[in-house]
C-alpha cells in the first residue's frame, strides 16, 4: 500500500518504444507535465486513465487501479483531440459522464448548463460537435471532463486552441476549481504560463521517462533538459566543460563561474545578455561578434535573435534600446554575458 494519494510506477509500450514513468502526488496537488512532442505526456495520461496497456503499479487513494477497469476509475480526461461524441449535442456530451455515473437527469442537466456557462459556451448547448469551431470544441471537452466528480483530473493541453482572453479566464476558473479539489490533477502543457499560474509541481518528461520533477520555481531556476530550459525562456547551449570553460558544440567558447567537466548544458536568461555596437570593455567575460538574425517587437519590449556561430541567442531589449543601438536584421552587433549569469549543469540527455 502506498502513502501518497497517487503512486505510480509504470511502463507502457507504444509501438517499439517502451515508456516508463514514476510519480507520487499528494491530495490536492496540480502537476504540470511538460516535455517535447512525442516525449510521452499523453501516454502518461493514458496510463493513469487505463486507456493504454500498462505494466507496473498504480495506486490512487490506496486502491490498486491496475485492477480497476477504466470506467470505474474516477478520472476526468480531456483528450488532446477532444474526442467529443459527434452524434450527441454539446449538452448531451457534457451530461454523459454524470449520467453514466448514476447522477439524476435533472442534476446532470443543471451541472452541464452551469459548466457550459462557466466556459462561455452556454449558447452552443444544442449544437453538434461538428458545428463548433476549434476553440469552442476545446471548451466543451473541458466542460465534459469537469462535469464528473473525479479523483484524478487529466488535462491534455486544455488551452491549446483557445484565444488569449478565454485562455486567461479559463486558467483562473480552473485555478479556483482545482483549489477546492482534493484529488490530483495532471496538466499537460506547452505554455510556461500554466506552470506559474496553475501548477504546484512540474514533471518534465523527456524521451519516455521522467527527467525532472520539482516546483515551478525550481524548474525555472535550474531546468534539467533543453526543452524545460526553453520553456521557461532561457537560452540553452550544449558543450563540453573543462576547468571553467565550455567549448560549445557548434560555435565559440564560453567562460563560466561554475566548475564542471564533460558534456554540459549551459543556460542563461535572455535579459542577461547585453548588446552593444562597439566591442564592449566591461566586466563581462564572454563577448562575441554576432549578426542580428531576427528582430521582433512585442508590446513595448523587443526580442533579438542573434547568430553565435550556428547556435542562436535570444536577447531581450527594450524598444528604446533597439532604436538607440540602431539594430536591424542582418546588422552586426556585439553580445556580452557575465560568467556569473551562466548556469552550467551536466547534460542529462
Amino acid at each position: 500500500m502506498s502513502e501518497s494519494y497517487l503512486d505510480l510506477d509504470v511502463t507502457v509500450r507504444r509501438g517499439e518504444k517502451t515508456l516508463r514513468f514514476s510519480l507520487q502526488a499528494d491530495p490536492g496537488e496540480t502537476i504540470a507535465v511538460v516535455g517535447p512532442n512525442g516525449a510521452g505526456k499523453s501516454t502518461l495520461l493514458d496510463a493513469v486513465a487505463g486507456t493504454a496497456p500498462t505494466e507496473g503499479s498504480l495506486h490512487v487513494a490506496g486502491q490498486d487501479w491496475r485492477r480497476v477497469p477504466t470506467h470505474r476509475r474516477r478520472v476526468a480526461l480531456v483528450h488532446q483531440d477532444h474526442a467529443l461524441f459527434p452524434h450527441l449535442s454539446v449538452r448531451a456530451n457534457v451530461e454523459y459522464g454524470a449520467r453514466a455515473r448514476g447522477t439524476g437527469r435533472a442534476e446532470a442537466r443543471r451541472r452541464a448548463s452551469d459548466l457550459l456557462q462557466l466556459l462561455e459556451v452556454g449558447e452552443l448547448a444544442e449544437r453538434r460537435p461538428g458545428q463548433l469551431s476549434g476553440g469552442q470544441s476545446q471548451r466543451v471537452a473541458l466542460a465534459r471532463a469537469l462535469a464528473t466528480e473525479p479523483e484524478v483530473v487529466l488535462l491534455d493541453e486544455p488551452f491549446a486552441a483557445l484565444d488569449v482572453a478565454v485562455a486567461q479566464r479559463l486558467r483562473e476558473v480552473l485555478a479556483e476549481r482545482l483549489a477546492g479539489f482534493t484529488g490530483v490533477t495532471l496538466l499537460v502543457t506547452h505554455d510556461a504560463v500554466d506552470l506559474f499560474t496553475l501548477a504546484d509541481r512540474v514533471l518534465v518528461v523527456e524521451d519516455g521517462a521522467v527527467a525532472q520533477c520539482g516546483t515551478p520555481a525550481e524548474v525555472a531556476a535550474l531546468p534539467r533538459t533543453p526543452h524545460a530550459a526553453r520553456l521557461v525562456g532561457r537560452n540553452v547551449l550544449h558543450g563540453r566543460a573543462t576547468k571553467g570553460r565550455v567549448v560549445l558544440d557548434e560555435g565559440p567558447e564560453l567562460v563560466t563561474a561554475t566548475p564542471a567537466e564533460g558534456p554540459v548544458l549551459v543556460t542563461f536568461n535572455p535579459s542577461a545578455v547585453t548588446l552593444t555596437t562597439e566591442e564592449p570593455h566591461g566586466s563581462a567575460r564572454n563577448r562575441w561578434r554576432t549578426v542580428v538574425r531576427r528582430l521582433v517587437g512585442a508590446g513595448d519590449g523587443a526580442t533579438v535573435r542573434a547568430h553565435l556561430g550556428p547556435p542562436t541567442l535570444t536577447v531581450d531589449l527594450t524598444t528604446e534600446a533597439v532604436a538607440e543601438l540602431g539594430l536591424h536584421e542582418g546588422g552586426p552587433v556585439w553580445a556580452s554575458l557575465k560568467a556569473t549569469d551562466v548556469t552550467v549543469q551536466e547534460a542529462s540527455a
Partner: protein
Amino acid sequence: MSRAPLRLVVPATVAAVFLVVPVIGLLVDTPWSRFWTVVTGAEALDALRLSVVTALLSTLLCVVLGLPLAWVLARLEFPGRRLLRGLVTVPLVLPPVVGGVALLSALGRNGLLGRPLDDVLGVTLPYTTAAVVVAHTFVSMPFFVISAEGALRAVPSRMETASATLGAGPWLTFRRVSLPLALPGVAAGAVLSFARSLGEFGATITFAGNYPGTTRTMPSEVYTRLQDDRDVAVALSVVLLVVSVAVLVSLRERWLGGLGAA
C-alpha cells in the same frame, strides 16, 4: 460540390439501368385489367399479411440476436473468432432449399434439437408460422451480422475509450456510443435482412411448407400461381414489390428517426 467524374457516373448509370429495366419489364407484363381482382383476393391478402409479419418478426430477431453477435465478432478477442465468423457466413452460401433441409435436420421432429424439444416440451416447429420466421431468420441473419459487424468495426476506438473515461461501462458504451455511431450500417443490415426475408422462398417452403394462411408467404403464393396462371403470379409480385418498398421506406425513417434522437 465538385463535378462528378464520368469514370464513376457512366458505370453507375449502367448499373442503375441494369437493375431498373427488369422491374420495368415486369410492370409492362403485369395484367393491369385483372390487377385489382387478383390482389384483393383473400389468398393473396393472407399471403401478403403473413409475409410482411414474418419478415418483420425475423428482422427483429436478426437485430436482437445478430447485433450482439456482430459486436462480439467486432470487439472481443477470443480463440476461434475467425472460425466463428466463417461459420456465421455459411448459411449465406447455402442454397436456400438446402438451408431448409439443414433446418429440418436440426429442428425437425427427428432433428438434433427438434427431438428433445418435441419430447420435453411437446413443441414441433416445422410447418408452423414460427417455422417461417425461423427459416427467414436463418437465411437473413448472416446478412445482418456481416453488415453490422463492419459498421461496429468502423467506430473509432477513441470514442469508446472516451466513453469509458467518463464512467460508462461496456454495455452503456455500446448502447449510447458504438451503436448510434454504427447506426447507418446497422440499419442497412436490417434493410438487407428484411428484404431477404420477404423474398425468401426455398428454405421456407422446405422447412415450413406451403400451407395457406399459416406458412404460405408471398413468394410461395407466387410460386404456386406460377403453376397455373403466370399473369396472376406477376401481378402478385408487383404487389409484393410495392408493399415491401413502402415498408422499407417507413421502417427506415421510423428507425433512423427514433434512434437518432434518443
